[in-house]
């Protein structure tokens, strides 16, 4: 398999300042030394808590916000410090589905004009665009009659299907799904997940699924990447990582998810304190150190290296 996206040592920093003019500048590493390959036709699940940099990473991939350093290679096109033409060409390989379907459809436009708008912008004649829209709607299992409805007339699940149809109509190679089901109910979530899996097989798509729901990741992904405060702390095959987590953060994440089985209740859980914002002051320290149950003094002054623990399964911890 060949990688369709190669990310190497990607960095993205945001600068914040306190006060309006003379405040002290502070930089926040939203994504820090991030390297990962995404292969053609795979479903990669990206997991992490809020503020871990998942969405920032997606924005950098889409060229929506410039990287601060490192390189991103999309199917042969390097988009870091690239000109607008290259970024545009790279962007055409992507389609995105966001979390809240209601906010990503224009309330004043019919479903049809929402779907054909990107096609028209790309220069597809209106007739052909309409045909494509009808086909796209069919592939998300919605009746053609929905083309003339407005978003408020649709349920959350239907709106999300429309958002997926609009993404599909551009014939992307990679779909970035940012929390595609977290605004939906359980029964609708199941429908959308099955639909996404069906489409992936049908069109041989590559998915990057961003979510904080481990159950969803486990169900759909081939590989999983765990992010903590901008760093990739562990990645590998879904079974390898979930059944044999090597990074303490993955371990904590897994045991924090409430298990839907009352018999498992009361099982021993690792104690974990603090919240995702607690980052050590020393930039070299492991970012988990202040919250990690296994942390020793060394963790606060050395950057752990990413080590391969089994074929294709990497973890970044001193104790691995």
């Amino acid at each position, binding site marked *: 398999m060949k990688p369709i996206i190669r990310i190497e040592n990607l960095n993205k920093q945001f600068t914040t300042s306190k006060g309006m003019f003379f405040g002290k500048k502070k930089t926040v590493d939203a994504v820090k030394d991030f390297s990962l390959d995404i292969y053609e036709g795979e479903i990669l699940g990206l997991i992490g*808590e*809020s503020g871990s940099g998942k969405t920032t990473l997606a924005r950098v991939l889409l060229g929506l916000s410039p990287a601060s350093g490192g390189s991103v290679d999309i199917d042969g096109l390097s988009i870091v410090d690239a000109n607008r033409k290259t970024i545009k060409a790279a962007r055409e390989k992507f389609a995105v589905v966001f979390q809240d379907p209601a906010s990503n459809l224009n309330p004043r436009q019919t479903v049809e004009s929402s779907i054909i708008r990107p096609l028209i912008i790309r220069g597809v004649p209106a007739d052909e665009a309409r045909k494509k829209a009808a086909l796209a709607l069919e592939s998300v299992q919605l009746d053609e009659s929905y083309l003339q409805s407005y978003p408020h007339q649709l*349920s959350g*699940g239907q709106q999300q299907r429309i958002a997926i149809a609009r993404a599909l109509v551009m014939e992307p190679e990679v779909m970035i799904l940012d929390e595609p089901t977290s605004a939906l*109910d*359980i*029964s*609708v*979530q*199941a*429908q959308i*997940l*099955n639909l996404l*899996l069906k489409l992936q097989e049908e069109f041989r798509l590559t998915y990057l699924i961003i979510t*904080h729901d*481990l*159950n*969803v990741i*486990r*169900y*759909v*992904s081939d590989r999983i990447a765990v992010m903590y405060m901008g760093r990739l702390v562990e990645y590998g095959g*879904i*079974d390898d990582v979930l059944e044999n987590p090597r990074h303490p953060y993955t371990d*904590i*994440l897994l*045991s*924090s*998810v*409430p*298990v*839907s*089985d*009352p*018999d*498992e*209740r009361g099982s021993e*859980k690792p104690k*974990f*304190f*603090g*919240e*995702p*914002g607690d980052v050590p002051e020393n930039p070299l320290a492991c970012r988990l150190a202040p919250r990690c149950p296994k942390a020793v003094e060394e963790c606060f002054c050395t950057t752990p290296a990413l080590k391969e623990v089994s074929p294709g399964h990497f973890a970044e911890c001193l104790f691995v």
Partner: protein
Amino acid sequence: MAEILKVRDLSVDYKVQNGYLSAVNDVSFSIDEGQIFALVGESGCGKSTIAHSIMRLSIDNNERISGSVEFDGKDLLSIKQADMEKIRGRHIGMIFQNPLDSLNPVYRSGTQVAEALMQDGLSRSEAGDRVIQLYRDVQIPDPEERVISFPHELSGGMRQRVMIAMMLARNPRLLIADEPTTALDVTVEAQVLSIMKEMCKKRGASVLLITHNFGIVAEIADRIGIMYAGEIVEEGEVGEIFKNPLHPYSEALLSALPKIKKKEGRIKTIEGTVPRILEKKAECRFCNRCPYADDICRTAAPETKFVSEGHSVRCHKR
């Protein structure tokens, strides 16, 4: 054990453009002292409407409420507004989903918790000391610093802990928690849930937990009521319902949870959508989506029946 809350035949209809929307229909359940009772269901099924009816939080005259809500021997639906005010917060506490909506942004967090305590006649300084103790109980780090923080200076998990501290400050006998951890990250969610459970156990408070997350129910609840389109379709012990769901909706919902792997096959889905019940018809509310539905389901509304001690189901077929 003594029942602390007894809801009988509660029905709530909201006035809408062309008639009345039946949001809650004929709901009965009771919570024992020290018990955690979970109401589970998808959005729009009436979970929050039940909570609001118990607290009498309906603000206008847009709804018709019938039935009874008995708390500690008193029917909350018929007592005077002034008496209800004495019960709210003092005897029944409530935690909402988004703590930022519940906290006043221009007051320090500790002041808001102290305000609740001063209602009970504590002096300002006594209340201040108690607040620090409460912050310590809900495991907020550096409580002395945190009491003078404004809500926006606290993280999401911290805010929800402040809410828990505020609710528990007056030792309520019943705590209504409406999606208390939905806005939180998983690691924080686990911390908040365990604090909530521990605190309630220590003080002997009962909890009415409203959620759509089966994981949370499995983790902390004693009993569960599964709601669909305004009705409790099945109710029982948590272990029993998870192992042996009887209502077709509970069965479908439990098997729609993604916990298996892609290779092991696809999860089951429930086709169709929840109906909007504008006028009550003589039919089962689930019949348009139910795989077992036949003539009787479409012509008569099922009654709640007990299949075993403490396990009831609302279905013709069981």
